[in-house]
């Protein structure tokens, strides 16, 4: 789960870099070029299979482990726990489910349209991701959901990256503090980066 999670974290950086091109003032030229590169490059096509595999492994292990963890305490405490824990670490499966819900919406909105399973909105060609994104972000409800989901992704990532290192046995008196700081920085940059886009659409555009 840790390895799959780190792989997904690398993917997020690539996805964010392309999404940020949406804000370029060039009528979507740069974004469309990047999207068509991702859609046609053979290495990216192979990586996409690994990506789906990564998501599947991460989710199945995550849900499986959470289920087993719940089963290991059949009788719960009457008093709420007051033990100090790493921020949001108790809620990884909850934040993960919120991200999963977004992933389903995202899949329907883009991937299913791309492969022709869902009909695109009137006037938009099924490979035209730029116009599709513009239309979605112009809807304040969608932008709001997008914003909230990525906020939770940030909470998820903040704990996840440093936890993945700990799980793989990387804990060191000097470097763990640095890993924790980088983990938080990564979470703020990635979640903040994605959140900037609906903000830009709603308030600045």
């Amino acid at each position, binding site marked *: 789960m840790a390895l799959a999670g780190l792989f997904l974290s690398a993917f997020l950086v690539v996805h964010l870099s392309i999404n940020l091109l949406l804000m370029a003032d060039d009528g979507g030229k740069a974004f469309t070029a990047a999207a068509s590169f991702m859609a046609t490059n053979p290495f990216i096509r192979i990586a996409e299979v690994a990506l789906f595999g990564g998501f599947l492994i991460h989710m199945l292990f995550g849900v499986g482990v959470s289920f*087993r963890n719940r089963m*290991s*305490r059949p009788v719960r405490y009457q008093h709420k*726990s007051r033990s100090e824990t790493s921020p949001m*670490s108790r809620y990884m499966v909850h934040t993960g489910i919120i991200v999963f819900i977004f992933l389903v919406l995202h899949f329907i909105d883009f991937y299913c349209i791309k492969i022709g399973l869902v009909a695109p909105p009137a006037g938009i060609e099924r490979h035209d991701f730029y116009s599709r994104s513009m239309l979605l972000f112009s809807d304040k409800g969608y932008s709001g959901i997008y914003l909230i989901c990525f906020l939770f992704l940030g909470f998820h990532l903040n704990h996840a990256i440093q936890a993945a290192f*700990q*799980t793989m046995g990387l804990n060191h008196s000097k470097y763990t503090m640095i890993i924790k700081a980088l983990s938080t920085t990564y979470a703020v940059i990635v979640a903040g980066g994605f959140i900037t886009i609906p903000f830009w659409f709603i308030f600045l555009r």
Partner: protein
Amino acid sequence: MNFTLKIWRQKNAADKGGLVTYTVGDISADSSFFEMLDQLNQLLIGKGEDPVSFDHDCREGICGTCSLYINGRPHGPLKGTTTCQLHMRSFRNGETIFVEPWRCGAFPVIKDLIVDRSAFDKIIQAGGYVSINSGGIPDANTIAVPKPNADAAFDAAACIGCGACVASCPNASATLFVAAKVSHLALLPQGRVEGERRVRKMVETMDHLGFGNCSNTYACEAECPKEITVANIARMNREFLAAKLFADKEKQVSFSL
């Protein structure tokens, strides 16, 4: 001082159990938590009622017998102490105090606040030892042990096996306990020899007994009365990964006498 106590009462393992409310008064601020429970039990015995059962032995924080989940924290509100080292001055006068047993499927309740922690013994039996008699205390420096290793091994060996890590973990995981035992032996030359087999066997037994998995919440580290750190968990994970991925296949040797 006066307190309202909400204590988990359960006749036996099969009983459903529930919280029962008691009030105690005229408690000295300097009495220990157990002395307060002793006073409550005297009252109950006087009324012909069944006293509250709880585990205790040394009452000085070294044996690991006492437990009690007090107001949402194993061993109560103080850091780095066991329940027997907790005094009533750590509570507000008139406070309502919830007292529950450790909760984990692998630690079934025997009666009231007493749980069966023999699952920990089974984990130790799976590999938490050195198979040969390593003899008496050797002359200093006969076997070279780096000072940082000796210190880290000693810190890990401070684990008293009380189970607070399991009680505090949102997943009821015994990872910190197993990690402490794996670490203290793996860091020393006598224990290093069986390191690979030990970590595999102990982790397999822990999983088999129904403890949860570690999700790195670090509640165990925050609640451990001996302040065992999660760096031991990372060491165990390294040991486990190395044992699973790189250890040679063990030769099957048959003996005949």
